[in-house]
């Protein structure tokens, strides 16, 4: 049984592509597409890895990251942040908020695989 990854992203076609790549790589992929109750989804799924988009409807990815880090069960779960803005400021914000890794859109599929593999040893 593969490791569990939770993809929190609101673009259906990105969800579909990333899910496809990861499941072909042996991951069990769950998805969630709004910000409001993202933390609930994290608690429910208890994933080994979270991929989190910064720009989500309802709540910013940074706020969700704060919630994840504040939750004792998931404070250590690796989080890969996705963003459309490559500014240094955003990267710093993500790091301060406790992101394990940070990736700028548009990314290649190989980059995604590299990132998740390095974050969760198989």
């Amino acid at each position, binding site marked *: 049984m593969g490791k569990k990854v939770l993809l929190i992203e609101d673009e259906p*076609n*990105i969800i579909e*592509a990333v899910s*496809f*790549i990861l499941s072909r790589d042996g991951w069990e992929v769950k998805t969630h597409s709004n910000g409001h109750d993202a933390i609930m989804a994290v608690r429910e799924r208890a994933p080994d890895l979270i991929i989190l988009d910064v720009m989500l409807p309802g709540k910013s990815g940074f706020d969700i990251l704060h919630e994840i880090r504040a939750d004792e069960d998931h404070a250590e779960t690796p989080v890969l942040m996705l963003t*459309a803005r490559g500014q240094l400021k955003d990267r710093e914000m993500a790091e301060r908020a406790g992101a394990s890794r940070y990736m700028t859109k548009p990314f290649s599929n190989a980059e995604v695989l590299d990132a998740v593999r390095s974050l969760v040893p198989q």
Partner: protein
Amino acid sequence: MSESTIIGTRIRERRILSGIRQSALAKEVGISPSYLNLIEHNRRRIGGKTLLKLAEVLEVEPSLLSEGAEATLLNGLKEAAGESEGDGPELSRTEELAGRFPGWAHLLVKQFRRSQELERTVETLTDRLAHDPYLSDSLHEVISTVTAIRASSSILVETKSLEPEWQNRFHRNINEESSRLAEGAEALVRYLEAAPNTQAEIKSPQDEMHAFLADHGYHFPELETESAGEAAEALLAGDNTMVSEAARKLTKEVLLRYEEDARKLPLRDVMVEINKVGLNPESLARTFDTNMARVFRRLATLPENEVGPIGLVVCDGSGSLTFRKPFPSFSVPRNAGACALWPLFQVLGQILTPIRVRLRQAGRGAEAVQALAVAEKVGRGSFTQPQLVSAHMLILPDDPESRTETVRDVGVNCRICPLPACPARREPSIMSEGF
């Protein structure tokens, strides 16, 4: 170093214009020719009786020799000098420059103003790019679609023996996303082409508004009639100097308030009252049963040829200047950063309590002015929104009867202010050397 030294250049010009020899003038005034020569070459300060006598002999108003447009010019030059880097200009010879090459000096100040305007334009544009919500939304949209297309297409290319079902699905996704991308890109191009500011010259809306008011001498006979109401609209409709919508909106607010003030304080009645009591805001407020701030605003809209120069500065609670009507011997900076010692800012902490202070702007010779300031509430505060305030400062010529009162020395802004050891100083002055 003092602005008063420029008087010498003017005395020399006047004397040569009148065809009087230096020695003859010196004799008439009762000073030695060599002393007059020093004065004329701005090597000696002059004031008081000698100045009055020289003016008398040269048949000019003493004020023409001691003040005037040069004050503005000098401050402009100092501001320009303040911005420069590297080998600094010879600040100690600013007066000499203004006196000997007024044309060049004016050109320099004009170019400095222009470069300031352009800098502001660049700032505005940069700011717009960085914070424009439409731009950032559109870009986000474009990046999202590109990401989806890139991920989907590389799945198609890189996955060996992809099931037809998946193939179809990713083809469909790419098709969907690429038409979204096309629309997004098109909208972006349209937006950038139709940028709201294609005007040749972009001034800040406040600048445009003040230029409009100054063109009319801050007085609008159209708004003085009882039938007013549409007059403000008509004035705006008849104007083609203001290009930005923001400026027209600001100006409309000012004109509507003008109308309201004029209704409460009708021109003819106010003039009758002023002829009786002088420029006395307190008495006017009592007679017309209105608040002090309104009286201040009203006084600043009276025709200058009847009441003389009256300046007005208005700021909001953050200290940003929202309105300025200039006064000859009192400079007001165009941007933020006015002197914190002005009573204008003092009254922000004491709403509805007017104060009157004799002010003298440093570096301006000995010209004192009367400053009257009061702050009033704007709108209504609530538990969720702070009570907004606005402070008004009226600037009147010095009152001969208050000449014995102490004068508060203030500046224009810190950069060009020579006041030593000032507790309100925010940044070092470029003038401190000369002190």
